[in-house]
């Protein structure tokens, strides 16, 4: 039993944002896999919850807009992101990332929007959404605005989403994914039911002959207090022959990230992982793009 004082099952997005505007204590609950765990842990007793769990018509599912933008409803289960034909055809690396949180049951309760709003650096979709440059549409009674993912994270577990705002759509424009192949590498201490010790997403666009790195995005989770892109490392390998890029990327990524010591892993070990995972992710991404390595 949860310490809930007020539970409203929203009937529409409009209804949800109205309640959020009225009740400054209200929080949004979607899949519940994060919020209920925190509530049970005593994080916010006597919770006021606005459930968007049943808003399938407005907030669930993946579609492809006419301009090629991938549009993902925030209450889409991880599992449905993975299995979506649109995702598989456009941003398959995001589908792969959504196949890694927890276990199968979690992936049919946990939602991609919840993963974003949770704003944890370890969130499995964070580095991939970062690499794809996702746009986050949020709505409140005050109106709608778009927050680029680069501006989403305000600190560990904190986002720039206001209390009265609701994430209503995740968008990935066509030019953010077209021509890229990618790889998400989750490093955990076991192979399931795991929180990432480190997450790494590499997207790469190869030259026509598959030998040069035309473009690259390299993003990490748990390499800093928030998800981040290794922009300097990207810049340094852009235009390099693929083999050279593979050789260089590890050290470049290590220089561009700031992991810390914790009881879960030492800084030295995380740096080792950053180097190794960057290299392996680039190789895997390039192979998917047709490179022979």
């Amino acid at each position: 039993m949860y310490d809930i004082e007020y539970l409203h099952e929203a009937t529409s997005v409009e209804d949800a944002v109205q309640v959020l505007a009225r009740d400054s204590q209200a929080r949004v609950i979607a899949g519940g896999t994060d919020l209920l765990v925190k509530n049970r842990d005593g994080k916010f007793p006597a919770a006021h919850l606005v459930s968007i769990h049943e808003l399938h018509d407005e907030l669930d599912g993946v579609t492809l807009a006419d301009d090629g933008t991938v549009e993902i409803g925030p209450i889409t289960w991880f599992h449905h992101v993975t299995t979506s034909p649109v995702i598989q055809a456009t941003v398959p690396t995001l589908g792969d990332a959504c196949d890694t949180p927890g276990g199968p049951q979690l992936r049919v309760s946990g939602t991609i929007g919840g993963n974003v709003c949770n704003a944890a650096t370890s969130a499995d979709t964070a580095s991939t959404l970062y690499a794809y440059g996702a746009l986050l549409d949020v709505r409140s009674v005050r109106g709608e605005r778009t927050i680029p993912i680069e501006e989403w994270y305000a600190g560990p577990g904190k986002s720039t989403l206001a209390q009265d705002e609701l994430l209503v759509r995740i968008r990935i424009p066509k030019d953010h994914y077209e021509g890229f192949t990618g790889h998400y590498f989750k490093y955990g201490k076991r192979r399931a039911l795991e929180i990432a010790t480190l997450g790494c997403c590499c997207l790469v666009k190869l030259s026509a002959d598959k030998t040069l790195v035309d473009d690259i995005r390299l993003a990490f989770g748990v390499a800093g207090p928030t998800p981040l892109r290794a922009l300097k490392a990207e810049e340094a390998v852009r235009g390099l022959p693929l083999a050279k890029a593979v050789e260089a990327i590890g050290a470049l990524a290590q220089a561009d990230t700031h992991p810390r010591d914790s009881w879960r892993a030492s800084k030295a070990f995380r740096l080792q992982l950053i180097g190794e995972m960057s290299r392996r992710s680039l190789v895997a991404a390039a192979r998917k793009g047709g490179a022979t390595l």
Partner: protein
Amino acid sequence: MMDMRILTCTVNGKKVQVGYDPRESLLDTLRNRLHLTSVKRGCEVGECGACTVLVDGVATDTCLYLTQWAQGKDILTVEGLAAPDGTLDPVQQAFVDEFAVQCGFCIPGLIMSTEEIVRTGRTYSRDELRKLLSGHLCRCTGYQDVMNAVEKAVNWCVEHGYSDQAGARA
């Protein structure tokens, strides 16, 4: 305190109406109000899978599922699997035959995830099955006989066209 609410849904093939406290998880309601005690509480945070049931055919951790959300849903637990004459369902039978059961606490959850798998009507590699069951922790079996049972049940169900029957029953 919030007022009690009424849940109307289908549980093990029967229409059910039951009063619930909106603070309850589906795990609480199934165990304490409907006495479906096969639904086990192991961790309450979606890590162990002991409370897994099928909600509209999907294997779901009921500890992280508010009862409120079960409104109108179709819920299946281990208590609803055997035939009216007591004949075990093929998944249950495979768990017995393959010695997959030790302390038995995680077993109802594992069986329900296997039920979801057999209802797809296809076969899977052992590694695929390992992944599909990776949301369950078992401390007794090392999963060895569990995997044998699941593999056997899945193959048997495909050979005997069981998914269609199960579909019809649900």
